[in-house]
């Protein structure tokens, strides 16, 4: 697909959309937009080789789960383009980044704006925690830690088939607390699976707060290298560093880019909430109003106009 915007513009658009949506809906995954906007913008706008979307711009309603007889069932993979040998696949491992991922789809022209209006509405496929059938989601990743293993299996299969397309997994740093993440890396290294790569949003945040306070994971890069990955550490808001990291040779190993991010990047007002940033709600009307004014100013837009009720 032809890029209509620069990656910087896409990233800003993601933050604006997630901010506006969170303001209107009395809260949301704001911090994930702050930390991951550049990463998702870069993946969709530059890094991945994706075909034209095969799904309608306005997402269809929930069409049932995979089951015998539900022959029309499709996943959300079509928003990332057709499953053809030359194209890359993308798994969003932390499925609670869905709002950010949907905003990205809109910014890069893969989903209509109306899609976000369906977010978390009953009967909609645009679910709060991205499901397999949600736009841009290709597999179920709602339980953290299963994404890289699935990506590795798909990559191994694609290598056997001779596909040139790679498998990319967008990960979150909290996932390294799960043993499965390490099982996946060692399996990739053991089997020389190097057509899978990952970019991990290292924001030091998890549901209970700062990761160091919940469960110290120590030096992720050193651990990953010891398990057999090629690791590059970058500033998650530096697009040139991202581009260079992807070019790192990683023959026989998976490439994992550790993108050290700020959970308040672009919305510094959220620092007041640090370190409880996993899901931002407003404690009062006054706070919502203050946040609306301040963050809108940071993002260079007008404050969100609320419906009177």
């Amino acid at each position, binding site marked *: 697909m032809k890029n209509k915007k620069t990656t910087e513009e896409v990233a800003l658009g993601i933050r604006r959309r997630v901010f506006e949506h969170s303001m209107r809906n009395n809260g949301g995954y704001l911090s994930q937009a702050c930390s991951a906007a550049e990463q998702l913008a870069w993946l969709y706008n530059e890094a991945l080789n994706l075909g034209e979307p095969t799904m309608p711009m306005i997402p269809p309603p929930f069409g049932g789960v995979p089951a015998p007889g539900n022959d029309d069932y499709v996943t959300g993979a079509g928003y990332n383009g057709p499953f053809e040998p030359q194209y890359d696949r993308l798994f969003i491992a932390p499925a609670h980044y869905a709002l950010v991922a949907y905003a990205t789809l809109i910014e890069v022209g893969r989903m209509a704006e109306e899609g976000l209006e369906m977010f978390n509405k009953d009967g909609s496929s645009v679910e709060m925690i991205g499901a397999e059938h949600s736009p841009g989601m290709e*597999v179920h990743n709602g339980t953290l830690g*299963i994404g890289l293993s699935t990506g590795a299996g798909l990559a191994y299969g694609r290598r056997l088939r001779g596909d040139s397309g790679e498998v990319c997994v967008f990960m979150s740093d909290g996932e390294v607390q799960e043993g499965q993440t390490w*099982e996946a890396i060692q399996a990739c290294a053991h089997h020389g699976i190097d057509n899978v790569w990952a970019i991990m949003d290292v924001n030091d945040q998890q549901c209970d707060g700062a990761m160091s306070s919940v469960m110290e994971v120590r030096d992720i890069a050193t651990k990953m290298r010891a398990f057999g990955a090629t690791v590059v550490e970058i500033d998650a808001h530096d697009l040139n560093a991202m581009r260079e990291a992807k070019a790192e040779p990683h023959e026989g190993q998976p490439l994992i880019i550790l993108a050290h991010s700020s959970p308040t990047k672009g919305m510094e007002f959220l620092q007041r909430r640090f370190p409880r940033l996993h899901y931002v709600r407003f404690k009062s009307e006054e706070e919502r109003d203050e946040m609306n004014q301040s963050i809108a100013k940071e993002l260079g837009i007008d404050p969100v106009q609320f419906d009177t009720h």
Partner: protein
Amino acid sequence: MVEMVTRPYASAFEKYALANKDVICMSADLTSSCEIDGFRDRHPEQFMSMGMAEQNMMSFAGGLGLAGYRPFIHTFGVFTYRRPYDQLMASIAYPRRKVRIMGFLPGVTTPGGMTHQAIEDIAIMRAMPNMSILETGDATEVESLCEAADSIDGPVYCRVLRGSVPRLFDTPIKVGEMRELSAGDDVLVVTAGITTEEALRAKAALAGAGVSIRHLHLHTLKPFDSKRLLDHLQSVKHGVITLENHVINGGIGSLVAETIAEAGIEKKLVRLGLQDTYAHGGSRPYLMRYYGLDALALVRGIEGLMNIETNIDADDLDAVRVDAVHSSAKAEAL
């Protein structure tokens, strides 16, 4: 004397996998224990060693399924669902990947004790949407298992017998069907896996005591043909007895109870199996006797159901087969 077949899975799997190149053989460090060591040595390009890391293996297999492959997972049954339950659900069952889970050492067929004995696997898999379940009861079923499992449009969990396996049947598994081994009209006996051989041990003695048995052997536990079972239930006078190598909750006993209740028919049901208990380590005949899963337990169950005395005791039953603890037919004493 019943024919014994040595390592029927080994040769059957190799033949099937070689004829189906989208089959990928996966193992979690129990390769010789699951009789695929020869396959690994002869066909390394179709074999994947996944190590002792079942969580990754399940999601990885899901990824292979997404790529259009049909992974055959080999390990002990108990290791395929207890630790990696979440991965089994999210990466395999939900998306209906064509993953064939070969669970060896079902129930008390291992002396490995609680950690090795899959005693609630059928209950777990029955509760999992999209999962099918097959169970093998003899060498012919083991030999036909790969083709039967691979014909299923979705994931399937299989209870596989290994080592020295008796040949009881001469026709392959036909998915969705059940075997009618006798057509009496006093009591319906429903068995699967190794308990079928036990019921057969009691056959002559029961006939001698004048008890007319209708015996069904199940190899397809899900999907299950309740309608067919209902026909058999309505063909007996005294009720039904289930004998399973599994806890009595959630397995074959429950399957039959559900059929009876949903049809609203009045039939007594006796459920034999592990009575809501764990087992411990010991030989198969010892465990089957101790926990009441053997031919004698079936006879006593039938006596209770019909309120009769048959005067059958252990000596009247066909001889129990005792496998050597150390045998060339199996990889280890487990």
